[in-house]
């Protein structure tokens, strides 16, 4: 295990200054996520436009550096993509975290790959995986228009 792998500069930076933070009016999708172990909560707001493109994506909530950074990075990566690509990015991320896989997707450019890979250190910290994945599961839930709150105890 290597703490530096977990707390990379990019993580610390996003953790401190999360992008796309806050609620906005006129969102088309919304979901709420909860990690009962630590009490962290996240809310995702999303606007899909007529072409089914993620026009806007923001979040509210509080949590550890890992969860804040992961959420912030997620919003940056997903925003601007089509529904299907967005869904694909989510599954690329979850796959990476769960199965310790390299990113081989052609849908991501190098910069995006670097960003997503910055979260791969979480792998070595099983109790922190849920911190990293909560927002992603919640986004998926918002996109699928599920009514139930996402609960990390259920998603794994």
């Amino acid at each position, binding site marked *: 295990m290597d703490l530096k792998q977990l707390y990379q500069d990019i993580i610390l930076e996003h953790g401190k200054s999360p992008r796309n933070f806050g609620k906005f009016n006129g969102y088309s999708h919304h979901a709420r996520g*909860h990690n*009962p*172990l630590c009490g962290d909560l996240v809310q995702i707001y999303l606007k899909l436009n007529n072409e089914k493109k993620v026009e806007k994506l923001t979040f509210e909530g509080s949590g550890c550096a890992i969860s804040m950074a992961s959420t912030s990075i997620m919003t940056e990566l997903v925003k601007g993509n089509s529904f299907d690509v967005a869904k694909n990015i989510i599954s690329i991320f979850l796959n990476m975290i769960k199965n310790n896989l390299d990113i081989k997707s052609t849908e991501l450019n190098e910069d995006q790959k670097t960003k997503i890979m910055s979260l791969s250190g979480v792998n070595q910290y*099983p*109790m*922190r995986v849920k911190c990293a994945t909560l927002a992603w599961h919640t986004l998926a839930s918002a996109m699928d228009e599920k009514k139930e709150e996402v*609960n990390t*105890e*259920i998603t794994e």
Partner: protein
Amino acid sequence: MNIKTIKSEFPIFSNKVNGKTLVYLDSSNSSQKPKSVLNSLDNFYKNEFSNIGRSIHSLAVNATNKYEETRMSIKNFINASSKDEIVFTKNATESINLVATTFGQQNIQKGDEILITELEHHSNYVPWHYLRETRGAVIKFAPIDENGDIIIDKLKELITSKTKIISVTHVSNVTGTIVPIKDIVEIAHKRNIPVLVDGCQSAPHIKINVKDLDCDFYVISCHKVYGPTGVGILYAKKKWLEKLPPYIGGGGMISEVKKDKITYASVPEKYEAGTMPTAEVVAFNESIKFIQSIGIENIMKHEKEITDYALEKLKTINSVNIIGNPKNKAGVISFTLKGIHPHDISTIVDEEGVAIRAGHHCCQILHEKLGLAATARASIGIYNTKEDIDILCQSIEKCRKVFE
């Protein structure tokens, strides 16, 4: 398979009891434990101990993983669909109470019927009796024939449109009857009635496949399966665990707690409140590995051989009366001795190092049916040998001498 080697895995057999070699024939009550299980317990406490699921430091992470590994082993051992279908309890009795209480809350109204059998252990009767007291349920007992087999036709006749659940043992802890669970589940499911199976006497002795049995609930007591005391198992189809209300409430089984509202964790955590028997669950994984290393088929074969030998030999002793003669019999042999009370038998054979049980074995309904207050019981485990049976028989002869 060499029983001497297997027996030597159990430290207790290097001891003397009353100056005699221990002949342990009380495995239906609780089994002895192999070294690997005790080593695991000791190692866990000495090197790895932590509470699970709460803290996120290294010890806690490791302990949580080990705990979950046992859950996965059990899933495989009984062929469940998912490890989320395995709930840890303190013993089989709690497992049955969990189902009776939560199922009762949701499904039992006044006049509804619960169908059990005359073979059942008190632990598979008292929890249902509570529903009789608190919710006005009716309990029906499927009768057994003179061999100790459940009369399936009668069981069928007892099912009505009010029958809400059937709860039945897999193996009787008195007669050793192996109950045709698959048939009963089929009958029940045709009428949309769920079935709980009490697997206390089957788990260490016969192959269990819950998917094949298709039962809704299956309960096991780990201390009878060469595991530590303090752990029980409830298998339940996931749909039931999700649908039924929670049971014991407290830390670890909640999702969000507010002053006016509480939501619960998902299954199986929803049913595991408070600090669990962590070390014991972890060590139980070794019990499963122990059984798997021998192979359940080999265990069945060996135990059948010893059981057949015992039945044969006991029958040659005048005045021994063996209770029940079921179609399929596991290694549980209850008997009486003419003119000698089971308690006296137990005390006298104990003097020879032979541990058997005397009493009603928590089956008063069955004993009432048999017209006996008590029986003596010799029950077989993987470590028993023909020599053990020989010593049992000799010590029974001694009983007769004392009373001549």
